[in-house]
């Protein structure tokens, strides 16, 4: 007598198992986590000077600006993207060309730029960042330091293909 593998019982059991795991979140569709593009912040582009050069560090350094750059939708890390940074620091105003610099993301989509200590300007200790190359849509950020004595700040980009 041939053995029947698919019986009404196994079908019911399997269907039930799928339903339970689907509703309980055990099965995750591949695209479930969609990365929403980062929006430009108010005032983010203030004192922007286009075309900041990629530098080892800005001025004497001592403050670490870092973050990740990902592609909108799948969140894939983006390597080799140029992030421009400027701020009011112990070495100059936001509008001073030497306060501006850029760095490239590594293979993990991580950027890190050594720059002078950020000091409060116009009532808030903050940095400015820009992505404005051609492959993705332009984004300007203006993150705040939680305390003016902080020596690091992070800001992440999720970029929309242009």
């Amino acid at each position: 007598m041939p053995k029947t593998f698919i019986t009404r019982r196994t079908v019911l059991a399997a269907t039930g198992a799928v339903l339970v795991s689907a509703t309980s979140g055990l099965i995750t569709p591949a695209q479930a986590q969609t990365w929403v593009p980062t929006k430009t912040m108010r005032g983010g582009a203030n004192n922007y000077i286009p075309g900041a050069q990629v530098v080892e560090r800005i001025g004497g350094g001592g403050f670490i600006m870092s973050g990740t750059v990902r592609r909108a939708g799948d969140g894939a890390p983006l390597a080799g993207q140029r992030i421009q940074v400027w701020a009011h620091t112990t070495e100059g105003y936001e509008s001073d060309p030497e306060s501006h610099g850029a760095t490239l993301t590594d293979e993990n989509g991580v950027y890190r730029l050594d720059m002078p200590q950020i000091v409060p300007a116009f009532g808030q200790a903050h940095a400015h960042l820009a992505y404005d190359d051609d492959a993705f849509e332009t984004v300007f950020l203006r993150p705040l330091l939680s305390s003016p004595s902080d020596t690091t700040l992070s800001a992440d980009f999720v970029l929309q293909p242009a």
Partner: protein
Amino acid sequence: MRRAALPGWLVWGGLAFAIAVPLIAALFSPQLAWRGPVYTVAGFSGVVGLALLLIQPLLAGGFLPGLSVARARVLHRISGAALVLCVVLHVAGLWITSPPDVIDALLFVSPTPFAAWGVVAMWAIFASALIVVLRRRLAVPVHIWRRAHSVLAVTIVVGSVVHAALILGTMEPWSKYLLSALVVIATGKVIYDRRAWVRRIR
């Protein structure tokens, strides 16, 4: 004519203390090391402006001993003109330092929460000055003038105090809060004493 309940030296000494402490504390701000002269003057115009906001209600209310009503009124006008000058220097200095930040503030699209409060106070100060200048020419009735001046004074004080409180600037926080509290109390007292909203029967 009201009689001051406190001895004169105490009132004047207290006023000098309340203004000198925040000013001197701001002069020792580490932030000044990273600011040029224009930005520094812009910042201190704001500090002096806040100090004038304490002097104004004290003059208006006749709380400063040794001053006649007429003398206090003249000083109130001079102090008001100085306040206008402070605001102009403050905004102009900030504009020179960073034009886009000031444009954002004036257009009420600044990312900083305190900018709009300051801009509202600025317009209220300008409006006060304009009414003072045009009052006689336009023959503004006294009760309308009093109400307008009271509403503007409250707007100026609330706007300026919130503006100052939220800013991470050269002012040392506690002396800033103390000065702000005195400004609010003094203004509130005069506004309440005057009761410009009550139409007096003549």
